[in-house]
C-alpha cells in the first residue's frame, strides 16, 4: 500500500477520534466551529504529507523570448519588446539583455518558454540540438563579409602545387582585393566587386621543406579587413621504385633512365641483348635477379614500364604474374607502337591509326588540368579510343587520346602510344619532360597506404574550443596512443567501424601542435579565435537555416503534440490552513472557554 493511503487512513482515524472527543466535550459552545476547525486542520495536515498534483494544458500563448546571437545588429532589436537574452558570444552594447552562459541549462530551467526568436547569425549545430521541439523564429543578420568557404590540402609532397580555393562574399559597397601571400611575398591576388560572391583559386608551388603559414589577406583600399592563416606542411616522400623491361634499348628508355637516376629514384632496367641474355642496370638500389619476372620481384616495385614487344616476348607465366601484381596494386605502363594488340593485357583499350600529317608537330595536353606541353616534332599516327572504363590522361591538340589508363584490381594499367618524349630534353624543354613523366608515373604507380589517417572536426580547430580527432588505423581492435603536445588522450572506438577511434580535446595554445598517433608525429594547426570568422558565421547561418527548414517540415507534429504539465500546489497553503485551524482550536479552548 502506498504511503499516501496510509497517511489518509491514519488521518481519517485521527479525525474520527477527534470528532468523538468533540461531541463528548462538556462545553458544547461553538461546537460546529470546532468540528469544522478540526476537519480543516486534519485535512490540511494530511495534505501536508501527501502533495496535491494536477495536470493542466499549457496556455494558448506560450512564453517567448528573444535570443540574441552573434552578429545581431543592435539597432534592429532596440524597438523589440519582450525579454531579451543574449548568448555569451554575442557582443551587444547599449542594450539591456540578460546574458546566457548556457542555453540548454536556461531552457531546461524555464520550461514555459516554448518559442524562441533568434536574431543574428544563429546557433551552432550543438546548440540547435538543444532547441529541438521549440518553436523557432529566425531573423538572420545580413550575410557576413569575408571568405565564406575555403579549402586547401594541409599536407603536400615536395614539388606539389598548393591550390587554395574558396568563395569570397563581399556584402559591402566597395570592391575588396584578396591577396594570397606566403613566404614573404604576395603570390597572387584577385578583386571581388562590391556586392558579389566570387570563387577564387590560387596556385603556388611552396618551396620550403617543413611547415609554413600562408595568408589570405582581404584589403579594402588600404584597410586590412581580415588576415586568414593558411597553414601548409611540405614533406619529402620516399621515392617510387621503378622497373623497366625493354625489348631493346632506345633513346626513350635511356633518357627516362637518366632522368629517374638523377632524381634519385630506385630503378631497375633490363633490356634484352640476345636470347635469354639481358643487360641490367640497377640505379639507386641493390641488385636483384631480373632474369625471371615473378610475383616476388614485382612486389618490390611500384611501377613497371614495358614495351608491348617485350610483354609479348616474355613467357605466359611471367605475363600472368604481372597481371596479378597489377591486381594487387602495382602500376603498369605499356608502350605500344603497333595498331594491333599483341597481348591481352595491352589489348584492353582500342587503338586506331590515321595517316599522320607530314611536317606537323604533336601538341600534347594533359586532359585533367589542361596543361599544354610545347610541341614535339613527331608525326603521331597511332591513337587510343578510351572506352567508358578508361581515363584519357594525355591527348593531342584535337582531343585524340594518346595515353589512357584503366583500373585493374587495385592497380592501374596505362597505355601510351607516344614513342619519343626525349625530344623535349633535346630541345631544352626540361620542364615539359618532368611534368609529363611526373604526371604519368604518379597517376600509374602503386598507391601508398598510410599507416593511419587523421581527421579533425571542425575544419578549423580553435583554441579553447572543443575539437574532435578521428583516426583511421590499418589495424583494427588496437587502441591507438594519441598525444597532443605531450598530453595523453584516451580515444574511443567507433561502434560500427572497429578501426576508427576518436578523442576530444580542448587546445590551450594556438599555432602548430604536435599530434602523435602511435609512433608517427603529425602537425596540427590550432587557429586563433578570430581566424576565419566570416566562414564560421556563414556556417552557423547555414546550419540555422537548415534547422528551420527541417523544423517547418515537422511543424505539424509539434503542434499536435499536447503539452501537458503537472503542477503541484504549494504545501504552504495547507500549512497555513493547518496553522489557522489549530490556532482557533487552541484559542477557543484557552481564552473563549474560560
Amino acid at each position: 500500500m502506498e504511503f499516501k493511503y496510509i497517511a489518509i487512513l491514519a488521518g481519517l482515524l485521527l479525525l474520527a477520534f477527534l470528532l468523538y472527543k468533540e461531541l463528548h466535550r462538556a462545553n458544547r459552545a461553538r461546537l460546529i466551529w470546532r468540528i469544522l476547525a478540526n476537519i480543516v486542520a486534519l485535512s490540511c495536515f494530511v495534505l501536508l504529507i501527501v502533495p496535491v498534483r494536477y495536470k493542466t494544458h499549457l496556455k494558448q500563448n506560450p512564453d517567448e523570448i528573444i535570443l540574441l546571437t552573434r552578429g545581431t545588429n543592435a539597432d534592429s532589436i532596440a524597438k523589440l519588446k519582450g525579454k531579451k537574452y543574449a548568448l555569451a558570444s554575442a557582443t551587444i552594447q547599449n542594450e539591456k539583455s540578460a546574458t546566457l552562459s548556457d542555453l540548454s541549462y536556461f531552457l531546461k530551467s524555464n520550461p514555459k518558454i516554448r518559442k524562441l526568436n533568434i536574431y543574428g547569425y544563429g546557433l551552432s549545430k550543438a546548440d540547435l540540438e538543444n532547441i529541438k521541439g521549440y518553436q523557432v523564429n529566425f531573423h538572420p543578420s545580413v550575410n557576413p563579409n569575408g571568405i565564406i568557404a575555403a579549402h586547401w590540402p594541409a599536407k603536400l609532397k615536395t614539388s606539389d602545387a598548393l591550390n587554395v580555393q574558396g568563395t569570397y562574399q563581399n556584402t559591402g559597397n566597395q570592391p575588396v582585393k584578396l591577396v594570397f601571400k606566403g613566404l614573404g611575398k604576395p603570390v597572387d591576388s584577385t578583386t571581388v566587386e562590391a556586392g558579389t560572391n566570387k570563387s577564387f583559386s590560387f596556385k603556388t608551388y611552396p618551396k620550403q621543406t617543413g611547415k609554413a603559414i600562408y595568408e589570405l589577406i582581404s584589403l579594402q583600399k588600404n584597410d586590412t579587413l581580415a588576415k586568414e592563416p593558411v597553414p601548409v606542411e611540405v614533406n619529402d616522400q620516399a621515392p617510387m621504385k621503378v622497373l623497366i623491361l625493354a625489348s631493346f634499348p632506345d633513346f626513350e628508355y635511356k633518357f627516362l633512365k637518366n632522368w629517374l637516376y638523377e632524381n634519385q629514384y630506385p630503378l631497375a632496367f633490363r633490356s634484352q641483348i640476345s636470347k635469354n641474355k639481358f643487360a641490367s642496370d640497377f640505379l639507386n638500389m641493390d641488385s636483384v635477379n631480373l632474369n625471371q619476372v615473378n610475383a616476388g620481384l614485382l612486389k618490390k616495385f611500384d611501377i613497371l614500364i614495358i614495351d608491348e614487344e617485350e610483354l609479348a616476348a616474355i613467357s605466359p607465366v611471367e605475363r600472368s604474374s604481372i597481371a596479378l601484381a597489377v591486381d594487387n596494386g602495382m602500376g603498369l605502363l605499356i608502350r605500344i607502337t603497333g595498331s594491333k594488340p599483341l597481348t591481352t593485357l595491352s589489348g584492353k583499350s582500342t587503338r586506331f591509326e590515321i595517316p599522320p600529317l607530314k611536317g606537323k608537330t604533336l601538341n600534347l595536353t594533359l586532359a585533367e588540368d589542361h596543361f599544354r606541353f610545347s610541341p614535339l616534332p613527331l608525326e603521331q599516327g597511332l591513337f587510343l579510343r578510351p572506352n567508358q572504363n578508361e581515363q584519357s590522361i594525355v591527348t593531342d591538340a584535337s582531343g585524340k587520346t594518346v595515353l589512357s589508363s584503366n583500373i585493374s584490381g587495385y592497380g592501374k594499367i596505362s597505355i601510351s602510344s607516344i614513342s619519343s618524349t626525349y625530344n623535349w630534353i633535346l630541345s631544352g624543354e626540361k620542364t615539359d619532360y618532368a611534368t609529363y613523366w611526373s604526371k604519368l608515373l604518379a597517376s600509374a604507380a602503386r598507391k601508398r597506404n598510410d599507416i593511419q589517417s587523421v581527421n579533425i572536426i571542425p575544419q578549423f580547430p580553435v583554441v579553447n574550443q572543443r575539437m574532435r580527432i578521428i583516426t583511421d588505423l590499418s589495424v583494427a581492435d588496437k587502441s591507438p596512443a594519441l598525444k597532443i603536445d605531450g598530453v595523453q588522450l584516451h580515444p574511443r572506438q567507433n561502434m560500427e567501424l572497429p578501426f576508427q577511434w576518436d578523442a576530444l580535446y580542448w587546445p590551450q595554445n594556438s599555432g602548430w601542435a604536435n599530434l602523435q598517433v602511435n609512433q608517427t608525429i603529425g602537425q596540427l594547426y590550432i587557429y586563433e579565435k578570430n581566424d576565419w570568422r566570416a566562414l564560421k558565421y556563414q556556417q552557423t547561418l547555414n546550419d540555422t537555416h537548415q534547422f528551420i527548414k527541417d523544423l517547418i517540415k515537422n511543424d505539424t507534429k509539434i503542434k499536435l503534440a499536447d503539452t501537458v504539465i503537472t503542477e503541484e500546489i504549494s504545501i504552504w497553503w495547507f500549512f497555513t490552513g493547518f496553522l489557522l485551524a489549530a490556532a482557533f482550536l487552541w484559542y477557543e479552548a484557552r481564552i473563549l472557554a474560560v
Partner: protein
Amino acid sequence: MLKTEGQHWIRSLRIRWISFYLAGITATALAIALLLSVTGFYLLHLPAWIITIIFPLVLAILLFCKPVWKTTDLDVSRFVNNHYPELEESADLLLQNETELSMLQQLQRNKIENIIPNLVQPKEPFKRLSIGLAILLAALIISFGITKIPQLNQTASASRTAKSPIHSIKENIPAEISTFSATIIPPAYTGKGERKQKQFTITAETGATVNWKITTNIGIKKLTLIFNDHEITPLRALNAAHTEWNFSKTINKPGFYQLNLDGKKSDLYQIEVIPDLPVTIKITQPKPHTTIDIGQPQKFNLNVSLTDDYGINDAFISATMASGKGEGVSFTEKKLSFNTAFDNKKSITLTKLIDLKSLGMKPGDELYFFIKAMDNHGQPSRSDVYFVSIVDTAELMSLAGMTNGVNLVPEYFRSERQIIIDTEKLLKEQATLPAATFKTRSNDLGIDQKLLRLRYGQFLGEENETEIGGDHEEHDEHAEHKSGEEKFGDVSAITDKYAHKHDIAEDATFFEPEMKAQLKAVLTEMWNAELRLRTYKPQEALPYEYKALRLLKDLQQKSRAYVAKTTVKVSALKPEKRLSGELDKITQPVQKMAFEQKEKRTAYLKTALALLEKRKIGKNFNEQDRFLLGETEKYMIGAAADQPATYLTALTSLRKLGVASKPMLRDIDVVQQAIQKMIHIELAKPQPQSAGPASVLYQDYFNNLNKAGR
C-alpha cells in the same frame, strides 16, 4: 759714404724694377702652374697637391730664363739713359765714386742730380707686373673653364643617353664618418665623364675606376674595405691624424662591400656593373634566302642597321662565294667594307649595293655573307649568314632529266624550253624583222604558251578553258537539259536542280597538295608570260618563262624517286641455322650506380625557408638553426657577389635576423623572397599518390565486389 740723391733714385728704381719683375714672374708662374694642375686634377685625376710641385718648378724655370735679380745699378742707369734724354747719357756718373770723377764729369753729375728727382718714374716695371697679372687672370679664367669640362661632358652624355639620375638609396653610414665621396671614372670607351656621388652604393660601367674619399671625425687606426666578404683591402691614410682616407679600385665585376673601421663593420653596400653590350646587327634587306632569276639585275641592296650602347668602331661584310658543282665547288672569301666613317656613333644605318657580277659571280654561283661589327671597346659581334644565289640558266636548259623520263606532253605542244628559245630568237631578230611580223610571231608564241598552260592545267583538273575569271555559261545549259526527266520524290534530283555542282577541281588528280600548289605557281608564271607575249613584249615575258621552267624542273625532280642499282650478291640463308648460336659464354652485363646529390644547397635553402617561417611565430633559433642560417648566409654571399642589387638587402636582413632578439617580420620577408629566388624553378617529380589506411574491412569489401563482378 753718404749716397747722393741721384744714386738713391737709381737704386730705388732698381729695387722697384726687380721686385715688380719678380712679382710679374711669380704671377706668370702661378698662372702656368694653375693651368697645369687644373688640367691634371680635373682631366687626369691627379691629386690636388700637385700644384705645390708644379708651381716652384715653373717659377724656377722662369727665373732661370730671366734672372732679374741680377740687374745692377749700372743696368738701371743704362736703361735710364736710354729712356730719359734729359739725362744726356750720363746717369752712370751718379754711380761712380765722386772723387774719381773728372771735373767735367762732376759738373755733369751735379746737373743731373738736379734733374733726376724731377723725372717721372719709368712705367716699365708696372707694365711687367700688369702683364704677369693679366696672364694670371687669363689662367684663372681658363682653369675655371677646365673645371667645367667634366660637367659639360656629363651633361652632354646625360642629354645623349637621358640617363636617369642616381636615385639616392637610404644608407646607414657609420657615425665615425663625417664626409665621404665616391668618384666614378668610367673607362674611355664609354665617352662619359666622371661623376662624384655622396653614397656608397655604386653603379659603374665595366672597367670603371672608383675612387673613395672618406673623412672621419676621429682618428682611426685602420680603415679597410671588405669586398664580397672575403677580399680585404686596407685604405691609405692621407694625413697624420688618420682622418682622411683614400682608395681606388677598378670595378669589373658586380658585388658588394663594407667598411671596417677599427673592427666596427658598416652596412653592406652594393656595387653594380653596367656591362658593355656588343653591337646589335639588323639586316633589313635582303631576305635570308634570295634567289636572283634570269632577267633580274644581278645585284642587290644591303640595308643594315647597327646599334651599340657606347659606339660602333667598325663593321664590314664578310662574303663567301661558292662556284662550281659537285666536287668542283670552290670558295672565295672577300671582305667588303662599307666605306663610311663610324666615328663611334651609337647607331648607324648602312646601305650598300652589292654587284654580284663585279664580285665575279656567274649564274649558278652562290653568295654567303654575314656582317661583322666591333664596338669601341673591341667587342666583336656578327650577324646570321645570308644567302644569295643566281639561277643557272644552262642547268635549266639542259635536257638531263627530261630525256629519260616519260614525256606526258604530246608532240604538238611546244615545251616551255622551246618557248624560251623561240622568244630569245625573236628578240635577237627583232631589229631585222618588220614590226607586223614581230607582233605576229610574238602572238604565236603567246598562243603556244597558252596551249602549254592549258595542258598543265589539265593535270590540276581544271576543266574550264581558263580558271582565271572562268565562265559558267555551259553549266546553265546542262541544267536545262536535265530538267525534263525528273522523278517524283527524288530528293537528290531536286537538290541538284538548285545546286550548282562541279567536280571539285582540287580533288580530280592524285597529286599531293604541295605539288598542286607548285603546279599552280607554274600556271601563274605561264599566264604572266602569255600576257606579255600577247601584248608584244617578249622581253618582259622572258623572266616569267624562265621562272616557269625552273619551277617545272623542280616539280620533275620532286616526283622522282632515285634508286641506285646495286650488284651485291648475298649468300643464301640457312633458316635452320639462324638464332642457334651458343650463348653460354656471353656474360650478362650488370651496371650498378647510385646517384649522390653532391649539392646540399637546395635542401638547405628549403629548410631555411621553413625555419624562418617558424621564427615568424616567435620561436627562437637553436644551435642547429644557427648552423643552418650560417650555411644560408654563405650561399647568399655567393649570390650577392653576382647580383648585389637583388640579394644585398636580403643579406643585410639575414645578418640582422641572426642577432636580433625579436622576430622582425619585414626582414624575414625580404630573406624569404631572396631564398625563393635562389632556389630557382623546381621541376616536377613523380610522387606516388597516397591512399587511406588499408584496413581489413576495406579489403574484404573490395574482394567481395570483385567476386560479385565475376
